[in-house]
């Protein structure tokens, strides 16, 4: 270590930074190629073909769209509307100056964010036991929408709370200084801005709800009320072939991928 280090003239044994980068990039491609070869060699292409049988896929039609997708959309849109309305209400309660309102909102949010969605749906089956004589309006649709709404409300409330708090305090002050009451200031100035802020996370929340709608199968629904996941599973059992499940999965992606794209578009527009 007696010779001074120089950067201008690298020694012959050392790689220049450019050569080093090229070498690392080369190694990365070699690893990728090796992994691809390994997979291609060990995959059992014949049994994999079982998952993409066109003649089985055809059997899912037309019920895939006219019943399963339709129900999935009814359940998730219904649940979403419930969670949007009650989520906003709960968020306002959580930010309320009335302490019991804050307690109620906090307790609700903690419970329904903490419980597995599956458990909520299983419990909903016992609703007649808890409330004898009471029937959820809308029958199966109503019960499924209620289940998704109960869960979605908790998450949506937290989304709205963050959105409401993200609106600068000066906005409320400006509204109040113009003579608006606290309520009027909320509704004309704060909430419209909060809704804009929460569009991206709310889109994500809708996607989550859409996927959770598969849990409707735990309500023990009759054939007219099946949604995508149960439908795919049922047709797969009938044909002893997994293709219908792949088809159902693709149908979910048909909805969720454009939604995610839309969410990113809306986010950029702000």
């Amino acid at each position: 270590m007696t010779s001074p280090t120089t950067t201008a003239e690298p020694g012959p044994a050392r790689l220049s930074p450019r050569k080093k980068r090229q070498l690392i990039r080369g190694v990365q491609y070699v690893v990728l190629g090796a992994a691809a070869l390994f997979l291609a060699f060990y995959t059992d292409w014949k049994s994999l073909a079982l998952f993409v049988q066109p003649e089985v896929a055809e059997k899912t039609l037309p019920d895939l769209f006219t019943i399963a997708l339709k129900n999935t959309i009814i359940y998730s849109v219904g649940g979403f509307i419930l969670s949007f309305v009650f989520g906003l209400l709960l968020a306002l309660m959580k930010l309320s100056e009335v302490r019991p309102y804050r307690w109620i909102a906090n307790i609700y949010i903690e419970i329904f964010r903490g419980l597995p969605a599956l458990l909520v749906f299983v419990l909903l089956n016992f609703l007649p036991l808890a409330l004898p004589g009471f029937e959820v309006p809308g029958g199966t649709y109503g019960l499924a929408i209620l289940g998704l709404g109960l869960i979605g409300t908790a998450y949506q409330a937290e989304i709205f709370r963050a959105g409401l708090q993200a609106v600068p305090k000066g906005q409320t002050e400006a509204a109040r200084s113009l003579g608006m009451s606290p309520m009027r200031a909320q509704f004309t100035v704060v909430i419209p801005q909060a809704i804009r802020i929460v569009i991206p996370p709310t889109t994500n929340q809708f996607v989550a709800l859409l996927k959770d709608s598969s849990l409707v199968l735990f309500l023990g629904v009759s054939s007219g009320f099946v949604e995508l996941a149960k439908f795919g599973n049922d047709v797969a059992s009938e044909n002893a072939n997994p293709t219908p499940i792949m088809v159902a999965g693709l149908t979910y992606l048909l909805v969720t991928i454009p939604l995610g794209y839309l969410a990113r578009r809306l986010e950029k527009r702000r």
Partner: protein
Amino acid sequence: MNHAIEVRDLHKSFGSNKVLQGIDFTVEPGQVVCVIGPSGSGKSTLLRCVNLLEMPTQGKVFINGVELTHLDADIDAARRHIGMVFQQFNLFPHMTALKNVMIAQQRVLKRGAQEAEIVARENLNKVGIGDKCDSYPAQLSGGQQQRVAIARALAMNPTLMLFDEPTSALDPELVGDVLTVMRKLAEEGMTMLVVTHEMGFAREVADRVVFMDGGVIVEDGPPAQVIGDPQHERTRTFLHRVLHPEER
């Protein structure tokens, strides 16, 4: 005749921080009063106590002879006639300039959309941005935004205008436009209470200048006296620092 603003023994604390420690002062109708003082002296807090954006810890505030600090006072009704202009403009970003000036007229004064729009356009013309009606706040410069904010307050037919450092957030070349509008308002006889660092404006436009420091009023008088010939050492030190910022 009633004072436009009367403040009696006003105290305001934030926790253990005593920001205002006994303020007494009045503003007469038609007067322009500028409040100056170092940052942290409580001048903005005083202004915000006048329309009760901050609730005083102790003391009374009267506007046109009506006690605002009274428990049964209708604060929303009183605020309709007290225009306020903020340092950060606080325009509603989801509305056009025109809508910003219309919304409170419609929702608070219950004016119809047509009337509100006529009043809004009048006031936007008055502050010199009649051509920006359809722009959103984000599309306007700071000076333009602040003038929309002034138009928004004026559209409510205030008897009194509060300005909280209206030019402090502006680029230097935009300050003049806003001060010109304020000068015009003063000439029209508007009652104005202005917290500002613009000594030139205070000297030329104000009827009275109030110097605050440490939560109390140190000096109160015509600008020629408070700015031109200050009686107190604290006022002199402050003015020297403001007028000769590079000397230490």
